[in-house]
Each structure stands twice: as structure tokens, then as C-alpha cells.
């Protein structure tokens, strides 16, 4: 299956990697004690490892291209499996009902840890769906999404701390404030395009975090705000385990509501305008769409969800400080959207579950956890750059029939 050429190439590649990793993997110096340690064994590991990976990738590529003709059909089938399920109402409802059932019984026979992690994943599903409006649908690359998340979290933390306001009272306030911040950010950056927009949003995210970090009188600075109340239910307070399960169910409900709303937005006049804006700004304006208004609505709606989840976040951890709102957080949420498949709701859900659960379950790899995470991120992009699940457009039908014209 693999010829001499591949073996030779494999050897060359592993030789290259041995060279590449030589200073960092082999040499270890202690500058003070002035000792050099040569860890030659690492070179051997690198050589063997690279060779194996190279052959593996070659085999995969070979099989792919060899079966290209045969595979293409199968590939298409596989790709559209989710789509087919979603397209058929019966299968769709079976699937949804089943997932819902699993989701409902999940906390009953899993540990608090599992429930907690799942809650986190659900939060990122909603965050991903919110960012999906901005990036996936409206095509505005936002690298500072975490700022709105912070606005929501701090709204609840501060209002709860100073005025003893409850979770349910602050939920709409947090969302609303975040939406206002979305508009505030949106105004100056309306003219910017593509990557300039990206860096300005990144800067905006950093500004919000830095202000929270430095303005101690307002936000208590880096030492954070603790003892934030957990959400209650009509005055009932839960213990810790109860609260974990309660927040889990809360997030299930939030997620369903969000999916419902985002789904409707996507197929509405507004959703079409967003996608048109993403596809071609000039044509979009020429078709009578108000670019400013459409962009601002996208920013503020996206921010709204981040604000809502920010409130939930503060209530869930009961403690927040600016360390939770770094650029990396924005990057992860963006990765969820891109990995899932831009603009695709099902894709975002998959993306969030993978990217949030993955590092948790990679804990078994202990110190190799983040190394593996980075590698997997690259590998997923290389092998599936369009994302896991591509977006499908809704089809509409007219009452009248329009037959295909017979070819003359």
C-alpha cells in the first residue's frame, strides 16, 4: 500500500522534525548551576512519532483519493445525514425528543461534576449561538465577544452585591446592558471591514477587562466579587447540589429558547438581511437594506445573549473576577462557531459540546491536555475547514406550481 517513496519521505520528514525539535526537546540547561543535560532519547521519540504520524496521514490521504470516485457519493450521504434527519419531520422529532429525554434524566444518574461540566457546555452552546448571529450570519468578525459576557456577569454580581437584586430580576437587565454595549461598540466600527473590525473588537474586549481590573472602586478589581447568590425559584433557595441541577435545567431551557429564537431569526426578513450583508455589503445596500441598522441589530442581539449567559455564569460560579474574561475566551467561542460550521445552528451546538467537553475529558492526559487541544483544533480545521456541519438554507414553496420549462 505504501511505496518506497512514502517510506523515504517519511524518513526525511522525521529527520526534519528531529532537527526542528533539537534545541527545545533535547537540550535542557540550568543557567545558574551551569549544567547542560542532553536528552537524546527525546530525539528518538520524535523520530518514531513523526514517522508514524506521517505514514498514518499518508494512508488516510491515499485512501481518500483512491476511493474518491466511490467515496464521493458516500461522503455526500454522510455529510447530509444530520440534514436528512432534520429534513424529515418525523426523524427530527424523534431525535429531539430522544435528546431531550436524555438531557432531562442526565443529572439524575451522573455526578455533580458531570452535570456541572455539561452546564458549562450548554452555556457555551448559547454563547456560540449568540456569536453565530454576529460572525456566522452577519459576517462581522468579532474577537471581543467576551466583553459582553463580562458586562452580563458584572451586572449581576454588582447589582446582587450592592442592591441584593435576585437572579431573575437581573437577567433582563444584564442582557439589556450587554445589548446597549453592543450598540456602543457597533457605532464606531460600522465603517470597518474584515480584520480591522476584528482587531478593534479585540481591543474593545481588552478595554472592558482592563477597566474591570483597574477600577477597583467599581468592580473590586482583580480580587473579584464573591458570594454572589445562586438563582432561586419563587423564593426557594437550593443547596449546592440542588443548585447545580437547577442551573443545569435552567440552561437546558435557555438553550431551547435560544435555538428557537435564533432559528426563527435566521429564517426571517432580518436573518436574510444579515446573510446578504455577509455575502456582499454593496449589493446588500443596493437592495435597500440599511447596513447600519442591520449591523447594529446583529451586534446588540449577539451581545444580548452573551449578557444573559454572563448573568448565569456569575450565578453559577458565585464568584467572578476579570481573569475569566480574557481574549482566549473570545477565541474559544469563535472557534466554536467556525468549527461547528459558520451560520449553522446544529453545527454550533456540536462545536460547543466538542470544544468544551474535550478539554474536560482530556484531563485524563493531565499535562498534555492543552497540547492535545491545540493539536486537535489544527487537525479539525485542516481536515474539515468548512466546519462540522454546513448550513442549510430553508426552502420555500409557492401555492402555485412552477413546472420546469421543457427544453426546446
Amino acid at each position, binding site marked *: 500500500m505504501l511505496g518506497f517513496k512514502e517510506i523515504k519521505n517519511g524518513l526525511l520528514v522525521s529527520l526534519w522534525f528531529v532537527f526542528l525539535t533539537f534545541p527545545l526537546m533535547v537540550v535542557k540547561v540550568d543557567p545558574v548551576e551551569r549544567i547542560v543535560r542532553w536528552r537524546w532519547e527525546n530525539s528518538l521519540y520524535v523520530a518514531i512519532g513523526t514517522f508514524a504520524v506521517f505514514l498514518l496521514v499518508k494512508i488516510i490521504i491515499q485512501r481518500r483519493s483512491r476511493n474518491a470516485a466511490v467515496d464521493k457519493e458516500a461522503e455526500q450521504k454522510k455529510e447530509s445525514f444530520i440534514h436528512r434527519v432534520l429534513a424529515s419531520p418525523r426523524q427530527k422529532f424523534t431525535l429531539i425528543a430522544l435528546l431531550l429525554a436524555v438531557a432531562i434524566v442526565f443529572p439524575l444518574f451522573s455526578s455533580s461534576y458531570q452535570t456541572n*461540566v455539561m452546564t458549562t457546555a450548554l452555556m457555551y452552546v448559547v454563547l456560540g449561538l449568540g456569536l453565530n448571529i454576529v460572525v456566522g450570519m452577519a459576517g462581522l468578525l468579532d474577537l471581543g465577544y467576551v466583553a459582553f459576557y463580562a458586562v452580563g456577569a458584572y451586572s449581576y454580581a454588582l447589582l446582587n452585591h450592592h442592591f441584593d437584586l435576585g437572579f431573575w430580576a437581573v437577567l433582563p437587565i444584564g442582557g439589556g446592558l450587554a445589548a446597549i454595549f453592543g450598540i456602543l461598540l457597533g457605532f464606531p466600527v460600522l465603517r470597518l471591514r474584515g480584520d480591522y473590525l476584528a482587531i478593534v473588537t479585540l481591543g474593545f474586549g481588552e478595554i472592558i477587562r482592563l477597566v474591570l481590573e483597574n477600577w477597583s472602586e467599581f468592580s473590586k478589581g482583580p480580587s473579584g466579587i464573591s458570594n454572589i447568590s445562586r438563582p432561586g425559584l419563587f423564593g426557594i433557595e437550593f443547596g449546592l447540589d440542588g443548585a447545580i441541577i437547577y442551573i443545569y435545567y435552567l440552561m437546558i431551557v435557555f438553550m431551547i429558547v435560544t435555538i428557537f429564537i435564533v432559528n426563527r431569526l435566521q429564517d426571517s426578513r432580518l436573518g436574510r438581511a444579515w446573510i446578504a450583508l455577509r455575502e456582499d455589503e454593496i449589493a446588500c445596500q443596493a437592495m435597500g437594506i440599511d447596513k447600519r441598522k442591520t449591523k447594529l441589530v446583529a451586534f446588540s442581539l449577539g451581545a444580548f445573549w452573551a449578557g444573559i449567559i454572563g448573568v448565569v455564569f456569575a450565578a453559577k460560579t*458565585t464568584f467572578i473576577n476579570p481573569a475569566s474574561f480574557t481574549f482566549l475566551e473570545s477565541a474559544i467561542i469563535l472557534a466554536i462557531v467556525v468549527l461547528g460550521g459558520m451560520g449553522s445552528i446544529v453545527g454550533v451546538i456540536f462545536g460547543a459540546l466538542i470544544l468544551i467537553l474535550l478539554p474536560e475529558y482530556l484531563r485524563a492526559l493531565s499535562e498534555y491536555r492543552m497540547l492535545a487541544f491545540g493539536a486537535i483544533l489544527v487537525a479539525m480545521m485542516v481536515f474539515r475547514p468548512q466546519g462540522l456541519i454546513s448550513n442549510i438554507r430553508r426552502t420555500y414553496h409557492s401555492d402555485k406550481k412552477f413546472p420546469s420549462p421543457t427544453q426546446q
Partner: protein
Amino acid sequence: MKLMRSKKILAAAAIMMLAFSAPVAGMAADTIKFGVAGAHSGDLASYGLPTVNAAKLVIDQVNAKGGINGKKIELLIEDDVCKPEVATNTATKLVSQGAEVVLGHICSGATKSALPIYTNANILVMSPSATNPDLTYSGEYPNFFRTIAPDDMQAKVDVDYALDKLGHTKIAVIHDKGDYGKGFAEFAKSFVEKSGKAEVVLFEGVTPGAVDYSAIVQKIKKSGAQAVIFGGYHPEAAKIVGMIKKKRLKVDFLSDDGVKDDTFIKVAGADAEGVYASGPKDTTGNPLSKAAFAEHKKVFNADAGAFFENAYTATLAMVNAIEKAGSTDLAALKKALQTEKVDTPLGNIYFDDKGDAVGIGFSVYQVQNGAFVEMK
């Protein structure tokens, strides 16, 4: 046919969901589960990983001697990246896995968010590095102990030294904007102001990881400060003292426990000479401390790193408490910690009812000829 296949896949999906939710590990009754939580990856990993090593060293020794009361100790090591939200997951995971005591967390923020979970599960937590005063003073976390002095105590020692021993009247207080550094700096500022003997001429934060600190050093110079009290960790301290030397500025530099670390001297080299840092009393002469560092060098072939001694001490204290209490019951452990003294690299210690270590003692050190020398 088509439908059957999709049903199969649905079933598979359901089974997968169930598999995820199955308990991770069965409870093995013959080991004591010892959790270690802290930042083991990301930008703050260098403060968390030494604790893991310390725990490994102590626990390996204990296990080599046959464990505690016949039971071996099993380490459960979990990363929290020093982020509050990850720390809650880490904590629930440790609780779910049956951890009976926990060494950690590293950052005060992460500790604060994780503590309610341990408190709820009645698990003893001991941090080698979380210095936020509230953690012990507030009384909300009866299960929390630490082997590091709280911010206010560290700040008091430094301020007293600068004002009384060195006789400075103009102090610049600088911090690294982190929860540890800023907390310390705010206390230092208020102690200076309260003393009436000196004034704070500058109070500012520097951005950790910035490529250059010369502007802030120029500002210190302009402020006319005679001493800089710095709250933060050694990397920034090293950069600032380096810049102070480069800019030919003559000021005393005093800092906290995060700087009183041999790595500081190694990194700052000659620039470190003359720098003051507060830290636990009497460690260099302590044979246990020497042994601990030697052991680390032998096993890991590297320098120990930040909070290693504190973590080593904490692990010893917890092991001792488990042994004396004969169980991992929180009340019994607390009693043992508060009554049974234990020999550690940081001295012969026990804990007060708030949870702070007693007997560590705190003093100011100065770097002289490449070593921290205690100032009497």
C-alpha cells in the same frame, strides 16, 4: 432500511451520552484520595506546577513508608488554569472522584470560587499560595487553611521594615494588577497612610508580561520615592529591578512572598542584590527545607519554583493531620491541624482557628551575595 440505520445511530448517540455520565472512577476504599488543584497550564502554570511536584514528593515518601495508617495515598491532580469558572469544575470533579482532602487552589480567585463546593462536601482544603485575607478572616470557609501569610500580614511586615528600619518617608507602591499583587499593594498603601510617618507618592499597576518597564521606572524616579514596595510575582519584580539598575536609580525595593523565591535571584542575577522580600522565617537553615529542595533536584532535575516550600509544608501538615486524626473527617482533621504541631520546611507549625498557619513567622529578607538573608 434507512429508518433502521438512523435509529441505530440514535441509539448509539444515547448510549454515548449515558457513557459520559457514568461515574468516572469507582470508590476504592483502600486509598486516601488526595486532591491537588491549581494552574497547571496557561500563563500561570509556573505558580501551580511546583505545588504538584511538592505533593508528589511528599506523597511518594509517605507511600514508600507504607502510607498512613496502612492506607496508601492516591493523588488526584486537576488543572484549574487559575480561572474561577474552571475552578468550580475542578472542584466538583475532585469531590465527585472522592477526594478527601485538597491541596490548592493556587490563585485566590479560583480558590474563592471553588471553596463553596468543598465546604458543602466537608472537605479540607489547604492552599500554599492563596493570600486573600477574606479567605480565612471572613469565617465563611471553616474548611480552609493555608500555609502562606495573608496579604495584610505580608504588607504590614514590609511597610514596617521600610518605615521603621530603613526610615523611608516617600514610598512608591507598585503592583502587577493581579489578585495577589494588587491585594498586597492596597494593604501596603493603607498601612503607609495610616502610619503617619510616610506618604505614598505613587500607586500604580504594571501590566504583567509587558515587554518593557522603563516608563514606570522613570515615573518612580520622578516621584522621588526612596523605596518601592512591589506587590506581585518574581518575573515582574526581576524586570523592574533590572530596569531600576539600568536607569541608575537608587531606591530600595521591597516585595512580598511571591518574590521571595530563589528563581527571582536566578532570573534577576546581579540586579537582585539588595532587594528586600518578606517571607516565612528561617528556611535556609532548616534541614527539612534543604532536604526538600535536594529531593526535588534529584527527582525532577530542575529548580523547584514558586510556592514549593509552602506546598511541601501544606502537604506535610495535611498528611500529619490525617495520621493523627485517624480519618479524613473534617472536624477531626481541623482539630488535629489546630493542636498537633508538625515539623515542616517552614518550621514547626500548627494552625489557628481561622485557618492561618502559626509558627511560620514572618520576616524580611535581603538578597546578599546571591542568597536571601534574613534581616534581624
